[in-house]
């Protein structure tokens, strides 16, 4: 009796386990079939070596992606005997996902890279495959399509890890302001700190309901820095409060704590007292652009690159046709403009890729074959877009069209020879032409900072910055000089000097290796 009981117990345990495993397996087969099935199908396929490339992009997929994917796969299967699966990380936690994708060893064949996705540090850590040897073999057309100096510019430790985009654009910022109000009250054009202040004063006096500066997170500081100094980087925010001027890149000073810093902070304090910022500026949730578009503010000091400004103009034209917007590009104040660095948009092959040659060959098609390029940038001709007098024209509107212009976020495989522009983009292109005249190469983005030696100090400093510098930036501290002293003291305790010294050392090594004086 006891014996029997025991066997039954054993049997039922086994049964329960089997049941559980069965449920899991059933779920897996039912829903995961698409991903796994294609892989298995490909390995036993008729031609024997058809592979499915895993392609990773940032952001959200457009609605019509399945259509585009099948069209592309028809072409790619005929040309290269490959299939492509386009995967999208969403904008939610994309940076964490990007990290996991690269660190988990998941087989990925192509992944988007940019300076803001930390291409340089991933390449340094060996997350990507060096392309120097594969390029001439697998993608000769791509190799010659990209100019030699661009290949050189993306090199990390003398190796190419990404295929840069060849379309040159400017993401330099500028001041966007309400031109109609300027004319109405006869104010000066805001093109220097003095005229900007006069303009803001005029707005405050004549339009009391407005908060003159559209601002969130104290972004205006970057704007003012670009208006008044000739820094190496375009965004006006060098890390750790350093000052590196474009003309003398090897001499580095500290902006934080300098006389200039104090003066700037006093300006911000004066502006707060005059009511140019909202009192709760550190908690503003609206975007600067929406504040401008809704007529709550008159000036945007940060984040307005030509492209974004153009979008604002189009938006305002439709909602408030009687308004006019003006724009002053910061490069005009600096005297030179830096186009985006080739690192800015690119595609790399992670080390985990099983088919690097095929991946590169496919990417070559994407860039240099017009059929592939138009399909992935603009969609299906006639269904998603039309070409009218050489301009891109969307079919329907953004709601009904399943694949808007560059809907796949294909910034990296833009090809200037095939590009189609919307008619409204002409103004941006004109601005680009103007900026082309004062063009100087970007010498900052090629630098790959390695913060492992001062990781703890960096984190501590970020806290200090938030706690002591942000309130100063928006003029919330009564005694500016004492406030700045407190901030410097706390920053030094957090290890500012160690960070600045180490950063300076790395920067100078980079200048030497890149041959920049």
């Amino acid at each position, binding site marked *: 009796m006891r014996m029997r009981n025991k066997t039954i*117990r054993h049997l*039922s345990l086994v049964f*329960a386990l089997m049941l*559980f495993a069965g*449920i*899991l397996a059933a*779920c*897996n087969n*039912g*829903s*995961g079939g*698409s*991903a*796994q099935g294609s892989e298995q199908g490909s390995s036993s396929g008729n031609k024997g070596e058809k592979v499915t490339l895993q392609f990773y992009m940032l*952001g*959200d*997929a*457009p609605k019509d992606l399945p259509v585009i994917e099948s069209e592309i796969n028809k072409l790619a299967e005929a040309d290269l005997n490959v299939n492509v699966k386009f*995967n*999208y*990380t*969403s*904008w*939610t*936690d994309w940076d964490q*996902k990007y990290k*996991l994708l690269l*660190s*988990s*060893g*998941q087989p990925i064949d192509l992944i988007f890279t*940019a300076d*803001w996705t930390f291409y340089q540090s991933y390449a340094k850590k060996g997350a990507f495959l060096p392309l120097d040897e594969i390029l001439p073999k697998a993608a000769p057309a791509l190799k010659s399509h990209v100019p030699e100096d661009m290949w050189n510019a993306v090199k990390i430790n003398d190796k190419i890890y990404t295929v840069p985009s060849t379309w040159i*654009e*400017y*993401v330099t*910022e500028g001041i966007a302001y309400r031109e109609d109000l300027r004319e109405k009250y006869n104010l000066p054009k805001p093109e220097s700190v003095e005229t900007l202040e006069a303009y803001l004063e005029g707005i405050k006096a004549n339009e009391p309901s407005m908060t003159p500066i559209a601002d*969130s997170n104290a*972004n205006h500081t970057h704007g003012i820095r670009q208006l008044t100094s000739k820094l190496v980087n*375009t*965004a006006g925010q060098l890390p750790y409060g350093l000052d590196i001027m474009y003309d003398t890149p090897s001499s580095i000073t500290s902006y934080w704590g300098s006389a200039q810093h104090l003066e700037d902070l006093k300006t911000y304090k004066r502006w707060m007292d005059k009511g140019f910022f909202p009192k709760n500026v550190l908690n503003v949730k609206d*975007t*600067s*652009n929406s504040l401008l578009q*809704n007529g709550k503010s008159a000036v945007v000091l*940060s*984040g307005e*690159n030509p*492209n*974004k400004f153009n*979008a604002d103009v189009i938006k305002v034209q439709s909602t408030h046709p009687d308004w006019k917007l003006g724009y002053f590009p910061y490069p005009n104040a600096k005297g030179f403009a830096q186009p985006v660095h080739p690192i*800015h948009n690119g595609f790399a092959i992670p080390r985990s890729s099983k088919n690097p040659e095929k991946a590169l060959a496919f990417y070559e098609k994407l860039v240099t074959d017009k059929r592939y390029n138009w399909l992935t940038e603009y969609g299906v001709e006639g269904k998603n877009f039309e070409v009218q007098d050489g301009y891109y024209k969307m079919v329907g509107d*953004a*709601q009904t069209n399943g694949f*808007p*212009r*560059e*809907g796949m*976020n294909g*910034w990296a495989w833009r090809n200037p020879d095939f590009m189609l522009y919307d008619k409204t983009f002409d103004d941006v292109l004109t601005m680009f032409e103007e900026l082309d005249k004062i063009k100087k190469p970007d010498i900052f983005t090629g630098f790959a900072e390695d913060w492992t030696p001062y990781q703890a100090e960096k984190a501590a400093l970020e806290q200090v910055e938030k706690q002591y510098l942000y309130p100063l930036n928006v003029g919330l501290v009564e005694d500016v000089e004492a406030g700045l002293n407190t901030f410097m003291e706390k920053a030094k305790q957090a290890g500012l000097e160690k960070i600045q010294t180490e950063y300076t050392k790395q920067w100078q090594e980079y200048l030497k290796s890149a041959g920049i004086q």
Partner: protein
Amino acid sequence: MHTRARDSEFTLLFQMIAYSVIVILSIICLLPFLLILSGSFSSNESIVRDGYHLFPTDFSLEGYKMVFKFPTQVLKAYGVTVFTTVVGTALGLFLITMAGFVLQRKDFKYRNTFSFFIYFTTLFGGGLVPWYIMLANYFNLTDTYTVLIFPGLMTPFLIILMKNFIRSAVPEELIESAKIDGANDFRMYCSIVLKLAMPGIATVGLFLALGYWNDWFTSSLFINDPDMYQLQFYLYNTMNTITFIDQMAIGTGITLSQDVPTESTKMAMAIVVTGPILFLYPFVQRYFVKGLTIGAVKG
């Protein structure tokens, strides 16, 4: 006589204080929800112009119209969430009650060893990266419904709760006498444990259902196919895209060809998302209090 009057006086005073505290607290809890509700019924212009009000100043249904203008995506996300919630809760309840029943049986020789394995994971976890590698590379669960259900099935805390609950709700003697009457283990599980542990099951079930309904993290990590997004993630992602446009597009120069939802649309989406799970509470609530206290106190 005298004391009794004093007593009832105190009772009355206590009740007055208790009721007013509860009323105030409930209002405080309800206010944010009311703000969202009123925001979802306001026109977007009035929100931008005057901010939120407790009662819509400018009544409009445009938020809801936007949400349901292209309902396929919202409905798909709804479908995924309902599916994972129902299947996950059912499967999870089955596994957790089974585990609880087994672990509290005195005649199960290895119950301490197994319990230790379960408790241990509450103290020491592998962390995010190994967890991701396990699910993505070894189990190959990327872009499957399994990945939305599987990781949440057995929560150590819920197993402990269930084990303690069964121990207190089902007396040892009852199992004993059932055994004498010839019931096998499955019989005991189905006819005795499941029936007596109903409050505990309702509690754990509610926890599981809430967990699945509110889950967005697994979608964020493992799902690339927009058709398989859970509702919460779909909403969260839409909101995040706006933040992204604000913060990242500055220096990157990338252009996003998406429509930014308006304030009222956001609020309407929030209502659409929270709505159904709100209706679950009243039905489970009567078990809820009992289940939680018994499970916790007599543990």
